[in-house]
C-alpha cells in the first residue's frame, strides 16, 4: 500500500547541505559554532544547523531519501526550533522569526513530499500553527520590511486548513474502523487529537472572524467538538457579523491567550465599524460620549490609543468626551493592529516555548 518516499536523514540537516553551506558560507548566525562567527569561514554547529527551505526547481530532485528527514528527525527539528531557538536572545525577535519560519517551511515541505501519515502530520502541524499565531500578534507592530503579516497569515491559513482537513479525514477513517469493528484503531485516533482539536477549530473561526464559511464549518461540527471554546468563538464571529461590537469585544477579552492574541488583530476593523456607526447613531452638536466608556468597550489599552484612532477617523474629542457628528468623519484606511494590554496581560509570565509547543491551558 505504501509507495511514498521515506526519508533517511536522521539529523535536522542533511550532511550534504551542511557541507555545502559551510563551504559556501551560507550559515545563519544561529547555526555557527560559537566563537567561529568572525572567522573567514565560520564552522557549522552540527547540533544547531537546520535544513533550509528551497523552492522546488527544474532539475533539482527534491525527493532524495538521504535529503529528507525521518519523522523522528522532523519532530526533533520542530522541538529544537520552538523550544530552544524561539527564546534566543542573540538576535532581535523578528530575525529569530525569519530563521524559524524559513526552517519550518522546509519541515512542511519534507512532510508534504513524504506524505506523512495523518497522525504524524497532525502532531507536527499543531505547534507550527501555534507559532504562526503567536508571531502574527507578537510582530504586528513591526514595519513590513521587518515582518510581512500577509505572508505569515498565508502560512497560518494554509496550515490551518490542512490541519482541519486532516481532522476530517481521521474522523472519517475512525468511524469506518468503528463500523468495521476495529475499535482499537478508533481509540488510537481519538486520543491523538481530540484534546487539541477544539482549540484549532476555534482558531480557524477567530482567525477568519466574520467569515461565513468559517462560521458554517463551526456550526456543522458534531456536538462533541463544539466545546465551550468553539461556542465562544462562534458567538464572537456571529456578533461581528451582526455588527454587535459590544458583545464581540466583551467575549474577546475572555478568550484564552493565543485566541485573544489573534482576535486582537481584528480589533482595528471592529473599532472602525463601531466608530462609523456611532458617528451616525450618536450624531449631535451638543451631546458627547465619554472616552473612558468607549475605551473600555472597544478594549483600548489606554486613552492615547483611542484618541489616536479618533483623530485618524476625523472624530472630534474635547475634554475626554467624543463628539460624534454625522458627515464629519471621513473614510480613512483602517489602522494597523497594535499590541493590546489585555493580551499582554495574558502573555506575561508565560514561557513562549511552552505556549507554542503545548498550547493554552484553559
Amino acid at each position: 500500500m505504501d509507495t511514498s518516499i521515506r526519508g533517511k536523514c536522521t539529523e535536522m540537516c542533511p550532511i550534504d547541505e551542511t557541507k555545502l553551506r559551510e563551504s559556501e558560507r551560507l550559515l545563519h548566525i544561529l547555526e555557527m559554532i560559537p566563537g567561529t562567527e568572525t572567522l573567514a569561514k565560520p564552522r557549522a554547529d552540527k547540533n544547531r544547523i537546520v535544513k533550509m527551505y528551497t523552492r522546488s526547481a527544474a532539475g533539482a530532485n527534491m525527493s532524495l531519501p538521504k535529503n529528507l528527514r525521518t519523522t523522528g528527525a522532523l519532530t526533533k527539528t520542530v522541538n529544537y526550533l520552538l523550544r530552544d531557538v524561539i527564546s534566543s536572545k542573540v538576535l532581535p525577535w523578528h530575525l529569530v522569526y525569519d530563521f524559524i519560519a524559513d526552517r519550518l517551511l522546509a519541515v512542511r515541505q519534507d512532510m508534504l513530499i513524504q506524505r506523512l501519515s495523518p497522525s504524524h502530520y497532525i502532531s507536527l502541524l499543531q505547534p507550527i500553527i501555534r507559532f504562526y499565531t503567536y508571531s502574527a500578534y507578537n510582530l504586528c507592530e513591526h514595519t513590513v520590511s521587518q515582518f510581512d503579516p500577509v505572508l505569515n497569515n498565508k502560512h497560518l491559513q494554509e496550515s490551518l486548513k490542512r490541519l482541519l482537513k486532516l481532522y476530517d479525514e481521521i474522523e472519517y477513517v475512525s468511524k469506518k474502523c468503528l463500523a468495521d469493528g476495529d475499535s482499537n484503531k478508533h481509540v488510537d485516533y481519538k486520543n491523538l487529537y481530540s484534546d487539541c482539536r477544539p482549540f484549532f477549530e476555534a482558531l480557524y473561526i477567530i482567525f477568519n472572524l466574520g467569515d461565513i464559511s468559517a462560521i458554517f464549518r463551526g456550526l456543522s461540527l458534531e456536538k462533541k467538538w463544539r466545546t465551550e471554546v468553539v461556542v465562544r468563538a462562534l458567538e464572537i464571529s456571529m456578533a461581528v457579523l451582526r455588527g454587535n461590537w459590544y458583545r464581540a469585544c466583551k467575549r474577546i477579552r475572555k478568550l484564552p491567550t493565543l485566541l485573544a492574541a489573534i482576535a486582537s488583530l481584528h480589533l482595528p476593523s471592529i473599532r472602525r465599524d463601531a466608530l462609523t456607526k456611532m458617528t451616525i447613531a450618536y450624531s449631535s452638536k451638543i451631546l458627547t460620549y465619554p472616552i473612558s466608556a468607549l475605551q473600555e468597550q472597544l478594549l483600548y489599552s489606554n486613552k492615547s490609543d483611542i484618541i489616536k484612532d479618533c483623530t485618524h477617523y476625523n472624530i472630534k474629542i474635547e475634554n475626554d468626551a467624543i463628539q460624534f457628528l454625522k458627515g464629519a468623519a471621513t473614510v480613512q484606511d483602517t489602522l494597523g493592529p497594535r499590541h493590546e494590554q489585555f493580551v499582554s496581560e495574558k502573555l506575561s509570565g508565560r514561557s513562549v516555548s511552552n505556549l507554542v509547543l503545548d498550547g493554552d491551558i484553559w
Partner: protein
Amino acid sequence: MTLMSLAHYLQLLDRSWRSQDAYKIANLLSLRHEHVESVNLHIENPETMVERFVTAPIDELVVFHLKCLYALSQKRYNEAYQLQSALTQALTKIIQSQKEENWFLPVMYVVCLDLRTVAQKAESEKVGITEKPGEILEKAAECLMGCFRVCAADNRSSEEDTKRIGMLNLVNQLFKVYFRINKLHLCKPLIRAIESSPFKESFSLSQQITYRYYVGRKAMFDSDYKAADQYLTYAFENCHKSSKRNKRLILIYLVPVKMLLGYIPKKEVLEKYDVVQFWDLVEAVCQGNLKLFDELMEKHESFFIKCGIYLIIDKLKIIAYRNLFRKVYLILDKHQIPVEALQTALLSLGQTDVDLDETQCIVANLIYEGKIKGYISDQHRKVVVSKQNPFPALTSLS
C-alpha cells in the same frame, strides 16, 4: 421489456444511431430507463457482441454502459462510477468530433446526469479507508467540466447547430456537485459563462429554473439579498405548480430572504408547501418575540444548518429587535425612549445577558441601517426618535 434480449437491445441502439434519434439513444444509455431491469443485459464482457451489432463510435459507449449495468447489479458502486466516468469521457470525444451539429446533446444530458448520481452513490458507499471525503464527486465534476469545455468552445457553428445550448444543463449538474461538496467558489466562473452567453434566454425553462435556484442560493450565501430575491422569485414563480417538492425547496430559501427585505409570507402559502415551521418564525419576528425566536433557533438548529440558512435566519433577529423597540415606542407614546425601557423589554424576553451598553449598541446598528430614525443620547441614556415616521417600513429601505 424486462426480458429484452441483448441482440434486440443492440439492434435498437444501432438503428437509433443510424436514424440520429438522440432521445432513443439517450433512453437506451440511461441508468434510469426500464431496460436496466433486464438481466439479459447484465454482462461482464459484452465487447464481442457489441462489436457484431453496433457501429463505431458509439460501440464504445455501449460497452461501458453494459459493463456499468453489470457492476451495479453486483453492487460494486465504485467500479460502476469508474465505468460511467469512462463512458462520459468517450462521449466527450464523440461530441467534440461532431462538427456543426448538436443533435447528440440529449444523450450527453442523460449520461452526465447518471454520472453525478452514480458518483453520489459511490461516495456514500465508499469502503476504502484511504480515500478522502468528497473525492469521487470532485473527480466526477472534473469529468463534467470536460464536457462543458467542449460545449462552451463550440462558437463556430450556427445558432441552430451550436453545442453551446447544452452548457446550462451541465452547469446545473456541476452546481449540484459543488453545493454538495461545499465548493461554492467554483460556481463563479460557471455563472459568468452563462451570464455572458448569447443564448441566455434560449435555454429551456426547466434548466433556467434550476439555474436560478442555485444562483439565488449562492447570492444568499454571499449576502447579496436583492439578487437572491430576484433569482429565487423567478424560480418559484416559474416552477410548475405540480412540482411541489421543488417549490418547497425554493421556498426554504426565498422565505428568509423575503423576510429580511421586509416582506411577510402568508400563512396559507407556508402551509400549502409544507414549510409551516417558518410560520412560528414569522410570528416571532413580527411580534419582536425574541424569546420565541431563540427557542426556534435552537429547535430547528440542525435543519437551518443543513439547509445553509442558519446565518440568514440569525439576521432576522435584527428585524425582531426593530419590531420590539417599535412596540415599546408605541406603548410609551413618546419621542424620547429611555434605553432602560428597551433593555427591560429585552430582559423580559429572555435576553438576560444584555446590559444598557449592549442595548445601545443594538439601537446604534438599527439607526445606522436606517431602520430607526433618530439618535442616541448617551448622557441621558435615551433614544430620541424622529417625530415623523421613526420606524420606516422595511420594504422602503434599499
